[in-house]
């Protein structure tokens, strides 16, 4: 009896399995776009989001005042504004300190609320009040007020170091009065007032920048976001993510609306049938998060996925697939650089051996010696890296700025491997002492990133070959340990990347070169002093100059200094690629788009 049941069950299983193998082939919905990628979304709140996963969803649901034109990252088209401000059309005024945006009429949020200039003002102010720690809102403060955040503004207005979270309602009103000066509603126009000219301001507001998204004031207040009152800054400043009312809700003017979000698993979006332009081609857009590449590949192969994310190293696995189109060589706004710490903490740091120049370690100021830096730079095998690791899908860079931004050109010099020169540099380093005694150092990379690891391995191979007394270890550490190493000054040389916030050279020179930059800020006082004298005046000049020609020269100079001084090991700017079923039409690249733009695509 039992056996019979077992056999019955087994055959049922087999029948079902076979049925589903057959059944799987038939579903190829034309009104659904399925995109399968990795990772997850940090939040759906456009003012909180600072990751591409979130920005991708926000991009399809919310809209900004302007957008990039086609593939360009420097030219714009109007979106929620009816015109792109420029000096020529008179909408950029006061020597670049006022920007006027005429707001489009007849646009509605997907809940039917009409878009008004008030919504735009609310959106900007809500973002600036929200200003979460580590968030993107510095990009509003920097151009508008020349500050890095609400904390700075509070200190400036009240003259004391008080946290925005502790403001009394009077103090709040005082701060708000200053804050409100940045944006003004003038009839159907919205006017931004900048304290200083800030040439990339339009980039900061363009579609793709989630912090520039326009949200529905009425709806947001209903959800519990900032109530629009001047007195309540303390209440809405820097909320914990889980308490943020817009964390998992969206209400935009864009072509799609949010249907369902299961973080790290999938996002479903539905067509906004009330959209102010032609409605989108897809009724449903599915973004799935599947970390395992093999699975994504199979989904594409069987047509269950229309577009998938393919890491560079696996590109060969999809190359010959039938019915699949691959676009490669897309310029991206990101780079990879070997960061060198000029002042390594040597106390209790196992990355520097003895911490002395005795052959058993490296001294604190190891990378402050230009010959050491150049020695490392000249020892690196750029050709092998680009060919083997990037499989040719990469452009070498000669400084922090990536192409095609100001200050770069096709013929700018890049590093080449030159072991003789490297040897020469090492011989000169520390007056020859280094060559005599040798050194031992640990290079770090964050685990899981094999390009960074390979970069470090390449350095190890060639440098150890130059002098047997040179000992290089490569150690992978987790992001948490990396963060700790950075803060404690324990890290030595490690490959890191920067993903552009907005396509302007300022966004590239600051993190790498400025003494308080994201990377520069962790290179110790030695670097700060040096940067203070050499590069920081140029950085300052670059961002306050309006004339593009002049700016170009300034950034060119910064790029040259960075190259010649060998401040960091400038490596490359990987190019992107897109892998999709051939039936997906209308796709074109844009370096500032955070992934998928479902609106431009079609499957017919």
């Amino acid at each position: 009896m039992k056996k019979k049941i077992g056999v019955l069950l087994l055959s049922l299983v087999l029948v079902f399995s076979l049925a589903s193998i057959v059944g799987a082939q038939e579903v190829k919905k034309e009104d659904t776009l399925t995109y399968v990628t990795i990772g997850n979304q940090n939040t759906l709140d456009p003012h909180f989001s600072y990751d591409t996963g979130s920005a991708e969803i926000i991009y399809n649901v919310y809209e900004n005042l302007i957008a990039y034109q086609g593939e360009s990252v420097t030219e714009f088209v109007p979106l929620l504004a009816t015109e792109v401000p420029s000096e020529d059309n008179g909408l950029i005024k006061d020597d670049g300190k006022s920007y006027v945006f005429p707001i489009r009429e007849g646009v509605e949020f997907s809940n039917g609320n009409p878009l008004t200039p008030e919504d735009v003002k609310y959106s900007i102010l809500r973002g600036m009040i929200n200003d979460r720690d580590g968030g993107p809102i510095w990009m509003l403060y920097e151009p508008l007020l020349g500050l890095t955040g609400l904390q700075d503004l509070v200190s400036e207005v009240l003259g004391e170091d008080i946290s925005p979270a502790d403001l009394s309602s009077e103090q709040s009103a005082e701060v708000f009065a200053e804050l409100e000066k940045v944006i003004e509603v003038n009839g159907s126009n919205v006017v931004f007032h900048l304290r200083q000219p800030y040439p990339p301001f339009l980039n900061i507001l363009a579609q793709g920048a989630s912090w520039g998204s326009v949200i529905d004031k009425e709806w947001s207040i209903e959800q519990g976001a900032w109530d629009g009152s001047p007195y309540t800054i303390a209440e809405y400043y820097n909320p914990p993510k889980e308490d943020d009312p817009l964390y998992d809700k969206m209400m935009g003017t864009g072509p799609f609306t949010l249907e369902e979000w299961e973080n790290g698993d999938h996002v479903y979006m539905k067509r906004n049938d009330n959209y102010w332009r032609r409605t989108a081609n897809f009724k449903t857009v599915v973004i799935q998060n599947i970390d395992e590449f093999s699975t994504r590949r199979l989904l594409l192969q069987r047509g269950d996925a229309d577009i998938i994310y393919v890491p560079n190293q696996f590109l060969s696995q999809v190359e010959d697939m039938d019915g699949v189109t691959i676009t490669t060589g897309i310029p991206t706004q990101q780079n990879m650089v070997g960061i060198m710490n000029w002042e390594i903490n040597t106390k209790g740091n196992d990355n520097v051996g003895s911490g002395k120049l005795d052959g058993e370690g490296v001294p604190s100021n190891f990378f402050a010696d230009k010959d050491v830096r150049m020695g490392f730079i000249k020892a690196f095998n750029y050709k092998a890296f680009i060919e083997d690791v990037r499989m040719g899908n990469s452009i070498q860079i000669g400084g922090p700025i990536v192409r095609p931004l100001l200050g770069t050109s096709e013929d700018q010099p890049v590093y080449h491997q030159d072991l003789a020169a490297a040897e020469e540099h090492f011989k000169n380093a520390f007056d020859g002492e280094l060559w005599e005694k040798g050194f031992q150092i640990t290079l770090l990379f964050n685990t899981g990133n094999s390009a960074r690891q390979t970069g470090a391995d390449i350095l190890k191979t060639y440098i150890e070959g130059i002098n047997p007394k040179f000992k290089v270890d490569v150690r992978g550490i987790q992001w948490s340990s990396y963060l700790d190493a950075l803060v404690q000054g324990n890290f030595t040389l490690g490959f890191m990347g920067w993903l552009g916030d907005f396509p302007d050279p300022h966004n590239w020179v600051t993190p790498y070169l400025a003494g308080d930059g994201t990377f520069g800020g962790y290179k110790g006082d030695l670097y700060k002093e040096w940067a203070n004298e050499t590069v920081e005046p140029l950085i300052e000049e670059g961002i306050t100059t309006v004339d593009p020609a002049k700016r170009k020269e300034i950034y060119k100079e910064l790029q040259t200094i960075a190259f010649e001084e060998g401040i960091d090991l400038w490596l490359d700017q990987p190019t992107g690629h897109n892998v999709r079923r051939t039936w997906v039409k209308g796709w074109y690249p844009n370096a500032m788009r955070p992934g998928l733009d479902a609106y431009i695509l079609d499957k017919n």
Partner: protein
Amino acid sequence: MINYIIRRLLILPVILFGVSVLVFAMLMLVGPYQRLSTYIKSPAELKTANLDSLVEKYGLNDPFHQQYGRWISGVLKGDFGWSETAGATVTEAVLQRFPATLELALLALIPVIMGGINLGVFSAVHHNDPWDHVTRVFSIVGWSIPTFVFGLVVLMIFYGVLGWFPPGRLSVWASDIIRSSEFVQYTHLNIIDGLLNANLKVVGDAIRHLVAPVFSISILWWAYILRITRSSMLETLRKDYIRTARSKGVKERVVVKKHARKNALIPVVTVAGHMVLGLLGGLVITETIFGYQGLGQFFASAASQLDYAAVLGLALYFGFLLILINLCVDVSYAIIDPRIRLE
């Protein structure tokens, strides 16, 4: 027996408290800046993140008892905190993933227990036969292949070459059906829901996705249970009361099934608790390999990201589950063995 259960239940909070202190103490080994990595996810965020104020905001530098006190008082209110890995509260995240893991574990456990025990009995009855040798070799080899090796080979052959058993929990089209409004998710166990909704395609798809992980996870424990049952059965078959039964003229089949098996199961039941413990660990590997979104995978990613709220919550959850399972083991032990029941 009832006294014993009550005592076990009374000790439950003590154990859970101990587990939480243990896990918390481990997490406190990590420096405050390292623990910030939960909140700072990329270098870009370093620009405006005031690390020191973040440390202060989350109280990462407070003494142990303060940090622990904060956490435990939340737990007592039913708030296990926010999991950055899941992007949800720990409770939500666990509830969301539990059905997936339950479905996998149940499907793995049932064949393990049924198959393992029957094969073990079979092997013992055929002691030293060729059949016995075959099952023995099978059990030792099964016990020796790491889950991750076995899982990858299964994936390579049954998915890569044959395309039968794909990773994940459901195909995209099946997920669409499940999420559609016509489909009612009664239990969130896809097979059962599929049957209740009379949607055999979903059932088939769910089974197709479960075959490989179930197989990978059970092979090890199958071998284990087989081994234990076999040796326990061999031992039991040598017992005097088996001879007594035979001397009464009892049929051999009845001797094995009635007299021997029930006694042989007593040690098997005790190791079942041990097995469940290992099974939970094995889920981490299996779910990771097959991209199966369950508690195991969640635990692995939470642990590697030092998502301490999730790690603590899950540790407690697993601890609770384990104690519960052990209680069940004890009860079934008592059901089988009157010596324990009547104590």
